[in-house]
């Protein structure tokens, strides 16, 4: 019997569990490689060629090339591993987070200054017809 996952109804949230870690293993390990400066240089000079060195799915490679972080997460990426990609791009954690919300960086930054996204209506999928 499959493990019960009570966290699957949290709106707009993917919990990085062991099943996701299995799906995303090579994607995340590719990200780890970007912690070394020579690898960052090789990746930047030819992203596709560098990605082809890793046994990742084509969908995972395309998500990286598109810098589509929501898609990378749905394909097993974890945000702390994916951070190596946007750090290599010179993009901040806040810019990367904003890109996943459908907001502009400016809108997102202002939301944070205003106290962040409210938990109201964001606990359980569909509780107010909101996201997720």
């Amino acid at each position: 019997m499959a493990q019960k996952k009570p966290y699957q109804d949290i709106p707009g949230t993917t919990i990085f569990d062991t099943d996701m870690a299995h799906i995303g293993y090579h994607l995340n390990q590719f990200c780890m490689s970007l912690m070394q400066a020579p690898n960052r240089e090789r990746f930047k000079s030819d992203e596709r060629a560098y990605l082809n060195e890793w046994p990742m799915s084509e969908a995972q490679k395309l998500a990286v090339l598109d810098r589509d972080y929501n898609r990378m997460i749905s394909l097993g990426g974890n945000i702390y591993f994916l951070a190596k990609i946007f750090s290599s791009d010179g993009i901040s954690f806040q810019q990367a987070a904003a890109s996943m919300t459908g907001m502009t960086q400016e809108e997102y930054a202002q939301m944070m200054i205003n106290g962040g996204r409210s938990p109201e209506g964001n606990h359980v999928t569909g509780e107010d017809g909101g996201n997720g």
Partner: protein
Amino acid sequence: MAKITAGVSTSHVPAIGAAIDQGKTAEPYWAPLFAGYEFSKKWIAEQKPDVVILVYNDHATAFSLDMVPTFAIGCAGEFKPADEGWGPRPVPVVKGHPELAAHIAQSVIHDDFDLTIVNKMDVDHGLTVPLSLLFGQPEGWPCLVIPLAVNVVLYPPPSGRRCYELGKAVRRAVESFDADLNVQVWGTGGMSHQLQGPRAGLINREFDNDFLERLVNSPDELSRMPHIEYVRKAGSEGIELVMWMIMRGALNEQVTERHRFYHVPASNTAVGHQVLENG
């Protein structure tokens, strides 16, 4: 004998480290946050701990997906600041206390807590940002540091209860170490935040302030909070707060709260910080 005298809790947001490293602490965005640490910087200069047991999490830095230890103790003589993708932070090398670390490992493993022993490890912002917040920018860190890394990246992390009990075991270990040492335990990470997906940016002031209060006055009850409550209410990364329970478990049941600070935001995150003294 060695003695645990105090505990510190603090968030360890990487952008805070960047603000310190780039000289931005007086900027309007950051000044209110750093003001919240002024008391603590003076306090720790008076306290002069010999050793800090620093509970933090590695953010896919020392531990890739090849191996993910639930609890790992750094037993090396030194730990280098890691290159997390933008070059290492310009902060001093962290000096360990191999003898006390080895003693803690032996003691808590005999006490049923099976720590992973780490003899070589780079440390990321999770460990170095709290040091910067409390000590500023010294030439060398003014105390020795024993890293205690907790997995909060790959779900499930250890339960808050397990963390709380580990803290108690760490205390028993420290108090049986035959050297006159002033030891502090720091719990880092949190507070509410979510860094991923359409719900990114979640902040829950009510949850956070309730947590700060219960951490001081009803930690035993707080330690029983299930994971689902952390991730649902405090965000997928808010579950880092289980690490604070190790710090709290290492202190007396009754503590004196010398300082409390709460601030939103630092980048994507709610910042919480407390100074708790034994006795």
